C-alpha cells in the first residue's frame, strides 16, 4: 500500500534552495528531446508472453502525453527516424541484436485536410486518407547482418472519433495492424498511455494521487519474439542457470540523421548518418537520476558507459535528499560507498552494470515471474517501487496512483485501446 506524503508550505520553502525533480517515466525528460516529440522514448516494458511462455514481449513507447482530439494532423511515427529495440544477451551491456522500425507515410488525397474522408471499417478502407507503414528489420550486431522480418506492415490509425469509426469499429480496425512473420508478432500504432503517475510531482513534489496520465495516448511498438531468437547462441538457458546469459538486457532508442536542410520549395532534406537522440530502459533514470546538465548527453550515450559517465549520480541520487527536504520522508542516509544497492540492481547475475531493463529468460520462466526489476509488466507500479528503493528506509512510499485508467488486455498487443478523439 502506498503512503502519500503531505505537501506543506514549509516544505516548499525548504525546496527553494534545491533543484526540482521530474517524475514521469521518461516523458519530455530532457530539454533537447522535449523539442523533438516524435522521437521521445517514454517507456519500455518486457515480460514473458502471457499467451506463450516461449516468447518475450517488448513494448517500446514513444511520443508522450498525446491528447486524443489532436487533429487534423494526428500523431504518428516519424518517417525520418530509426526506432530501435536493442538486446544484450551476454551481459556485457553491449547490444547483440537490434530490432529496427522504419516508417513511411502516404496520403491518398492531398486536396483535403481530412485524415479520413469518410467512415473507416478496415485498414484497407479507401476513406483512410493518411496511412503509415513500416519495415521491421533484425540486425545481428556481431556480424552486422540485417534481415527484414516484416515489410510494408500497416500502422494502426489514430482513433479519430465515433463518426470516423462508427459502431465501435476502431479496435477491430486497429487490430488488423497486427503483423506476423514466422514466430514474430508486431504492432505499431496509438494505444492508451499505460504509464500511471501523478505528474503534479513537477509542482514542487506535490503528489497526491492525481491520475494525470489518464485519458492520453502514446505511440506504441509491441514486439513478441521467440526467446530462442533472442538468447545467447540461440539457445534458451536451462532452468536454474544464473550466469550472465540467463538474463537479457533491453533498451529502446530513437535516432535521427545528423543534418536537416530546410528547403524553400520542397520538403526538407535529411542527410548523414543517424545519431541516437533518445534512449530508455529502466523507468525514471533520466528523469530523476540524471541532472539537467547531462540529460541530453544521457540520451546520446550508450548503456555500456553508464557507470563511467553517470555512476556518481547513481551512487549519490538526488531523489532521497529531495524527499527528505521537501516532504520530510525520513529516507535513509546512504551507506559509506553510496547507493551500491542500486548499482547491484543494475547488474543482476554478474552482468555489467548499466541502465538496461533486464529479464530472466531461463526455461520455466513465465508471465508470473516477470515484474520490475525482472523485466517490467504493464501493471507494475514502478513509480512506487523506485521511490521506495530510493528512499530505502523500509517503508513503502508512492505517488498515490496505483493503476492505469484502462484495463490491459490478455491478448496481443496487450495494451489498451487508445482514447477516442470524439468519444
Amino acid at each position, binding site marked *: 500500500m502506498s503512503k502519500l506524503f503531505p505537501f506543506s508550505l514549509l516544505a516548499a520553502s525548504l525546496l527553494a534552495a534545491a533543484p526540482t525533480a521530474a517524475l514521469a517515466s521518461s516523458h519530455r525528460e530532457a530539454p533537447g528531446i522535449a523539442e523533438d516529440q516524435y522521437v521521445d522514448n517514454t517507456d519500455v516494458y518486457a515480460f514473458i508472453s502471457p499467451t506463450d511462455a516461449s516468447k518475450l514481449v517488448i513494448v517500446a513507447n514513444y511520443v508522450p502525453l498525446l491528447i486524443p482530439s489532436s487533429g487534423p494532423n494526428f500523431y504518428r511515427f516519424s518517417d525520418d527516424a530509426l526506432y530501435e529495440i536493442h538486446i544484450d544477451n551476454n551481459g556485457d551491456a553491449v547490444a547483440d541484436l537490434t530490432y529496427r522500425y522504419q516508417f513511411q507515410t502516404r496520403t491518398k488525397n492531398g486536396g483535403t485536410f481530412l485524415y479520413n474522408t469518410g467512415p473507416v471499417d478496415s485498414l484497407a478502407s479507401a476513406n483512410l486518407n493518411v496511412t503509415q507503414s513500416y519495415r521491421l528489420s533484425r540486425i545481428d550486431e556481431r556480424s552486422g547482418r540485417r534481415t527484414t522480418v516484416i515489410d510494408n506492415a500497416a500502422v494502426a490509425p489514430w482513433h479519430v472519433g465515433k463518426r470516423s469509426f462508427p459502431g465501435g469499429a476502431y479496435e477491430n480496425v486497429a487490430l488488423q495492424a497486427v503483423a506476423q512473420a514466422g514466430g514474430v508478432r508486431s504492432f505499431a500504432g496509438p494505444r492508451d498511455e499505460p504509464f500511471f503517475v501523478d505528474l503534479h510531482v513537477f509542482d514542487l513534489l506535490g503528489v497526491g494521487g492525481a491520475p494525470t496520465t489518464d485519458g492520453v495516448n502514446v505511440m506504441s511498438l509491441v514486439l513478441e519474439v521467440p526467446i530462442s531468437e533472442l538468447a545467447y547462441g540461440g539457445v534458451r538457458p536451462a532452468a536454474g542457470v544464473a550466469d550472465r546469459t540467463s538474463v537479457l538486457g533491453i533498451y529502446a532508442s530513437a535516432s535521427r540523421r545528423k543534418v536537416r536542410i530546410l528547403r524553400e520549395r520542397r520538403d526538407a532534406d535529411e542527410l548523414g548518418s543517424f545519431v541516437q537522440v533518445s534512449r530508455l530502459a529502466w523507468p525514471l533514470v533520466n528523469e530523476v537520476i*540524471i*541532472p539537467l*546538465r*547531462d540529460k*541530453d*548527453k*544521457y540520451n*546520446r*550515450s550508450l548503456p555500456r*558507459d553508464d*557507470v*563511467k*559517465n*553517470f*555512476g*556518481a*549520480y547513481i*551512487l*549519490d541520487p*538526488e531523489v532521497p535528499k529531495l524527499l527528505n527536504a521537501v516532504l520530510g520522508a525520513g529516507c535513509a542516509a*546512504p*551507506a*559509506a*560507498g*553510496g547507493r*551500491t544497492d542500486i*548499482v*547491484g540492481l543494475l*547488474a543482476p547475475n554478474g552482468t*555489467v*552494470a548499466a541502465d538496461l531493463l533486464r529479464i530472466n529468460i531461463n526455461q520455466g520462466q513465465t508471465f508470473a515471474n516477470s515484474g520490475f526489476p525482472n523485466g517490467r509488466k504493464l501493471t507494475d507500479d514502478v513509480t512506487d517501487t523506485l521511490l521506495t528503493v530510493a528512499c530505502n528506509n523500509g517503508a513503502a512510499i508512492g505517488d498515490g496512483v496505483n493503476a492505469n485508467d484502462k484495463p490491459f488486455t490478455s491478448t496481443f498487443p496487450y495494451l489498451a485501446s487508445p482514447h477516442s478523439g470524439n468519444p
Partner: protein
Amino acid sequence: MPRSASSSGAGFAVRGASIALLALGLGCQATEAPRPVATEPAPSAAPRWAGSQEELARALDEAAQSVEPGANRQVRQRWLGQQVRWTVWRIPQLCGAEGACYVRPFSSARREEHGAHGWLPEVELTASERQALLAGCGDRALCQVTLEARVDELVVSDEAPTSIKLGGARVVATGDA
C-alpha cells in the same frame, strides 16, 4: 593551475634554441677561455602533477558555462596526457578482482558543496597494481586510495557526457575513508 602540455612543450623548445644559439656564439670565440655555459635547471625526475580532481571539475564547470568556442577543447588539451596524483575512493562493487575499475573521485558531500558531476574515472591497473589495491583495501565498503596515473582519455563535449580514463596507474597508498 594545471599546466598546458602544449605551452610546456613550446617553452622547452624556445629554451633549447637559446642554448643552441649560445653554444654557436661560444664556438665563434674559440680563442677565448672557455666560460661556463648557461644551464637550465636539470629536469626534475619527479613528475609534475596536473592538478586535483576538484580542479578538473572546476575547469569542466567553467567550460560548461563558457560561451567561448573551444572552451571544452582547452580543458581537454590542458589535462590529456598529464600525470595526476589523486586521492579517490574505491568501492568493491565497481572495482573488484577483475573487469573494469571505476573509482569515486569525490566524497558524497561534493554534490552539495560544488554541484553535480556524474563521471567516475576508469582506472587501468596492471595485475600487480590491482593486487596491491585489493590487498590494501580488503573488503572495505569504502577505501581511500592515492593513485598516480596518466590521463589517457578525457571526453569534454557539449554533446557527449564527460568521461575520464586513467592509465599507467600506480597505487601509492590505501587507507580508511
